[in-house]
């Protein structure tokens, strides 16, 4: 019935998270910065890493998924919180114009809307998502993924433009 949130010292907890991820998945680039455990993963092991975080390390809250269009590839940031001061930030790079990645809705059901939003705004397809529809824009009237850098709106306002 009730959920137990982690307790105890923050630093030792972060070390434990880092060790847990390293033991299971390798992850050479990971490090602890402040209260953040930074992980850089390959797209194909992402669901396993997140499953480790939730099931073994009890990091229960997926805060958000950020997608950044790097023109040619996408950078995805999954931010997980243990709700007691610790942050696990999973970054990865998706190559290709029309990327496909496994969904994490079976691990964190809250990712449902985040992934729908990412599909809507960037066209990233989440394999196995139960309900992959556009979240904001029209399904049949707006044929673009508007947050892609290739979709430009005409008014770019810069410092030089002010003068």
């Amino acid at each position, binding site marked *: 019935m009730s959920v137990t949130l982690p307790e105890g010292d923050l630093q030792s907890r972060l070390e434990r998270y880092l060790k847990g991820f390293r033991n299971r998945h390798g992850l050479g680039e990971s490090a602890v910065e402040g209260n953040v455990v930074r992980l850089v993963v390959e797209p194909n092991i992402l669901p396993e890493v997140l499953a480790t975080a939730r099931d073994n390390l009890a990091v229960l809250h997926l805060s958000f998924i950020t997608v950044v269009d790097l023109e040619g590839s996408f950078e995805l940031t999954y931010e997980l919180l243990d709700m007691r001061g610790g942050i696990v930030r999973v970054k990865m790079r998706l190559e290709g114009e*029309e990327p496909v990645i496994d969904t994490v809705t079976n691990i964190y059901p809250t990712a449902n809307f985040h992934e729908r939003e990412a599909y809507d705004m960037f066209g990233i397809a989440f394999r196995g998502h139960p309900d992959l529809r556009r979240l904001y824009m029209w399904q*049949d009237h707006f044929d*673009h993924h508007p947050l892609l850098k290739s979709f430009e709106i005409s008014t770019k306002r810069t410092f030089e433009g002010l003068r």
Partner: protein
Amino acid sequence: MGVMQRFNEPNIITTSTDKLFNWARKNSLWPLQFGLACCAIEMMSTGMAHNDLDRFGAGFFTASPRQADVMIVSGTVSTKMAERMTRLYEQMPEPKWVIAMGACAISGGPFLDGYSVLMGADRVIPVDVYVPGCPPRPEALIFGIMTLQKKIERESQVAYERPRPALVDEDGNFLEYLPEREYTNISEGKAPRLEGIGELKRTHVFERRGMPPAAMTDVGWIPSDPDNTQEDGAAEEPADPRGTA
């Protein structure tokens, strides 16, 4: 009142009933309970105890468009909402008025650059009073309602015919608002799954210089495909300042 329209020019019957009807209409302006965005909070604030809109007889916010007299477009109209707003406007019985409240409803406001924002409510429905501000203060909305009351006072059922600009210009473009609009069945159906994603157009430059392309003023606007326009020639020729039907 169909009876009054049988007269060709104003007479004592139409002018005196004008006075009565206009007095009644202006003093009982029931707004539609239609909060779009940020301005809706200020619209509610106007109806609340401090700036009691009910003093003017306009405080009865109806939940159904069938009983409303005035629609206060309070906030940004997105292209997705524009069709619903037009439908609500057409569901309201005559006589009806529209107040565009706030910068967004007038011109798009701070979200003018956005890809999903209509550049003002007057692109889809006729607007009577514009209340600027972001959001306008409640006093400003009350002033807008009083301006609308003044406008209603000047209305008449039968009037001398005045020379009006032609409805259609030489090129065959319609110059006035025409409520003819096709409603498409917009269903939030299932997305094409993985195999369908590749077909989406990936590159599009969304331009807004001067007036928008004519087709954009319509609801359910689909940005024209640059490839198609080249093939079709002048099918989707933009930048007609008057808009076409």
